[in-house]
C-alpha cells in the first residue's frame, strides 16, 4: 500500500489555515484512494519521521514562510523525497510579491503600481516624508500589505493620509518589508491552475465579494462573510483572459502542480495581477476547492493525480 504524508501547521501566523487545509486534503486523499495517509506538523521530529518512514510522496500544505518561501521544499529535495507542488526556487519567487509583480509585468501583464520598502527606510529617511512621497506617486486609496505573507494578514486599505501610518505599523508587524500598492476598483477574481498530463489548465474562475471593505483574513476564513460566484460573473472573453494571466503566472514563476492567481478586473475588463500563491489554501472556505468542484473534479482525485506526477518525477 502506498503511503503519503501531508505536512501542515508550522509556525507562521497562517498555521491555523494550514492545519485546516491539511486535514481536508488528508481526508480527501483517504476517501479517494487506497493508501495510508498520515499528517504531520513541521517541527523537530519531522526529519526523523521522514527518514524512518520514507513516504512515497509528501504533500506540503504549509502556508506562509517555510511552506511558501521554499525552505521546506528544499529540505524535501535534499532528502530525495517526491513532493507535490512547486520547487523551492519557484515558491520563493511567487512568495515575494514585488518580485512576482516584476516578473509578470515583464511578461506583459498589468499589475497595479506599487512601492516596496523596508522598515529601515522609513526610520532613516523619516516616515512622514516617505509616506507623503508615496501618496504623491501612487495616490489614494492604497492597499498596504507585508511583502511576504498570506491570507491578507497585516493588509489594510488606506483611504486617507491619517490612516497611512497605522496601516504601515500593521504591515510591519508581519514582515520587515511592506508593499504599498494602488487600489484598483473592480471585480476580485481568483483563478486556480492545475497541472495535468496535457499541461497546466486554468480552472473556472471564482468571483469574490466580501462584505468587508477588503477580502481580509476574517472574510477569507469565516463562513458567511463573503459571497463567492463560480464561475465568476464576467463575460467569457474576460474569464478567458483571466485564465491566460493565471497560466502565464504559473509558467513565468516556474510553478508546478497547482497554484492560484488573484486579480482585479477593472471596468474596462483588464485583469490586474495582484499575486500568485504556490500553496493555495484548501479549507472549507478556500478558493481552489471551489474551482475544482465547479470543474467537476474532486479534491481527492486531483491530489492523487498530482501525487502520481510527483512520484513519476522521482
Amino acid at each position: 500500500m502506498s503511503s503519503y504524508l501531508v505536512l501542515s501547521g508550522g509556525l507562521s501566523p497562517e498555521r491555523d489555515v494550514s492545519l485546516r487545509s491539511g486535514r481536508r486534503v488528508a481526508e480527501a486523499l483517504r476517501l479517494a484512494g487506497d493508501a495510508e495517509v498520515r499528517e504531520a506538523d513541521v517541527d523537530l521530529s519531522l526529519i526523523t519521521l521522514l527518514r524512518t518512514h520514507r513516504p512515497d510522496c509528501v504533500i506540503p500544505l504549509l502556508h506562509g514562510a517555510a511552506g511558501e518561501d521554499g525552505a521546506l521544499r528544499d529540505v524535501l529535495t535534499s532528502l530525495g523525497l517526491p513532493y507535490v507542488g512547486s520547487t523551492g526556487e519557484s515558491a520563493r519567487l511567487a512568495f515575494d510579491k514585488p518580485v512576482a509583480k516584476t516578473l509578470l509585468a515583464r511578461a506583459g501583464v498589468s499589475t497595479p503600481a506599487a512601492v516596496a520598502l523596508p522598515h529601515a527606510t522609513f526610520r532613516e529617511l523619516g516616515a512622514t516624508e516617505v509616506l507623503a512621497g508615496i501618496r504623491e506617486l501612487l495616490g489614494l486609496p492604497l492597499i498596504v500589505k507585508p511583502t511576504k505573507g498570506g491570507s491578507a494578514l497585516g493588509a489594510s486599505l488606506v483611504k486617507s493620509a491619517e490612516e497611512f501610518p497605522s496601516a504601515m505599523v500593521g504591515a510591519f508587524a508581519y514582515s520587515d518589508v511592506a508593499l504599498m500598492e494602488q487600489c484598483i476598483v473592480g471585480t476580485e477574481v481568483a483563478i486556480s491552475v492545475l497541472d495535468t498530463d496535457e499541461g497546466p489548465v486554468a480552472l473556472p474562475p471564482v468571483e469574490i465579494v466580501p462584505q468587508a471593505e477588503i477580502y481580509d483574513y476574517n472574510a477569507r476564513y469565516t463562513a458567511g462573510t463573503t459571497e463567492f460566484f463560480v464561475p465568476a460573473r464576467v463575460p467569457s472573453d474576460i474569464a478567458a483572459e483571466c485564465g491566460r494571466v493565471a497560466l502565464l503566472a504559473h509558467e513565468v514563476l516556474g510553478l508546478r502542480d497547482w497554484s492560484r492567481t488573484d486579480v482585479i478586473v477593472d471596468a474596462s475588463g483588464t485583469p490586474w495581477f495582484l499575486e500568485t500563491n504556490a500553496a493555495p489554501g484548501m479549507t472549507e472556505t478556500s478558493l481552489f476547492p471551489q474551482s475544482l468542484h465547479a470543474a467537476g473534479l474532486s479534491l481527492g482525485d486531483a491530489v492523487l493525480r498530482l501525487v502520481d506526477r510527483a512520484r513519476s518525477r522521482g
Partner: protein
Amino acid sequence: MQASEIRALFAVASRPEVVSLAGGMPFVQALNMELMAETVGRLLRERGAVALQYGSGQGDVALREQILEVMADVKVSAHPDDIVVTTGSQMALDLVTRVFCDPGDVVLVEAPSYVGALGVFRAYECDVVHVAMDDQGLSPVALEEAITALAAQGRKAKMLYTIPSFHNPAGVTQGQDRRTEILAIAQRAGVLLLEDDPYGLLGFEGEPPAAIRSHDEEGVIYLGSFSKTIASGLRVGWAVAPHGVREKLVLAAESAVLCPSNYSQLTISEYLSTQPWREQIKAYRELYRERRDALLESLEQLMPPGTSWTTPAGGFYSWVTLPHGLDAKAMLPRAVSALVAYVPGTGFYVNGQGHEHMRLSYCYPEPERIREGVRRLAGVIEGELEIAATFGTSSALHADSGSSTPESNVPAPNLQ
C-alpha cells in the same frame, strides 16, 4: 486587526517553541497523580454504580457539606442546602445571569474583567458597564459614581460582578475594608453582588482573604471552584445563594445539564475525604509563587522604561501597561514571530479599551521558560517602540474594526 486574526495567532502559540504567557491553564501536573488514581479506582470499585449514574440537580449532598469545610478558609459559612454544585463555576455564572438578568439589564463589572463573565453577560444581552479599579481592586468611589450616573439616566444596575481576590486579569486584591465598603454600596443601591472567587485559596502570603460574603450574606451570591485547587478537568464549581435564588438556579441547572457530573463530584468528595488536599493546595501555592517571582524578577530586569505591571499576591496573572502609544493587540503578530504570546488587554473589556495593556500568566510555564518569555517580550516591545517612533504614536494606531468581541481576543481555555 480582526478577531479571527487574533485566534490565528493563538494557534501558533500552542507550539512548544512559543513561550506562552497567554494561557490560564492550572498546572495540574503538580497533582499527585498516584493518589488521584487511587481515589478514582476506589470510587469506582466501591461506588461505581452511583458515580456513573445521574445524580441530583443541586449536587451531591456529601460534597456540599465538604464544600462548607473548604469555604471555611475564606470565612464563608452557609448551610449545605444553600449550595448548588455546577459544571465549573462558569456554569454557575451563566445560571445566575440567566435567572436574574433580562436583555438590556445593566451589569457593573471591573475594568478590566474576566472574559468568561463578559461573554456570559453578552450572551444574555446585558448592558455591561466597566467600573475603574486601582491597585486595591474595584474603586468604591468609581462604583458610587457609576451607580449615580445610571440613576441620572433613570437606570439601575441589576448586578455587580466582582473578583475580589487575585483578580483575573488584573492581579490585584481588595483589602477587607474595601470589601465591606463595596458591599455596603451595593446593598444601599439594591444591586445584587456576584462574588467570583476561583483563586481565593491561592494566595502566596498569610491567610486566604475573607470573602465579601463573610461580612454579610444579604444580596450576595458567592461562586467557588475546584478548578485551581484540585483540577480544572473535573469541572466542578458551586454557587452559594439564599433559598429563593437557589431554587431557581437548580431548576435552570436541571434544564441545562440535568445534573452535574456525579463521577467528577464523587471523585472530589472521595479526594477531600481521603487525601491531604490542604497539602496539595499548599504545593500549588508554592509552585505558583515561584513562577510569579520568576515573572516579576524578569519584568523588573528586562522591561523597557515606561512599562509597568501589577504585583499579584496570589492567583495566576499580572497586568502589564505598555509604554505610552503602544498597542498590545497590534503588537501580537510581532510577538508571535518572536515566539512569545500574551493576551492583549482588549480581551477584557466590552468597550474596545485595553489596547495599552496585556495580561501575562505565570501559571503554566516553568520558571526558566517564564524568564525566556519575558526576555523575548522585552525585545518585541523595544521593536514596537522603534516602529512607533518611526511612524508616530497616536490613537489612530488602534485600528479596530469595532466588530470584535472580548472573547475573540483571547485564546481558548485549553491554550497552555
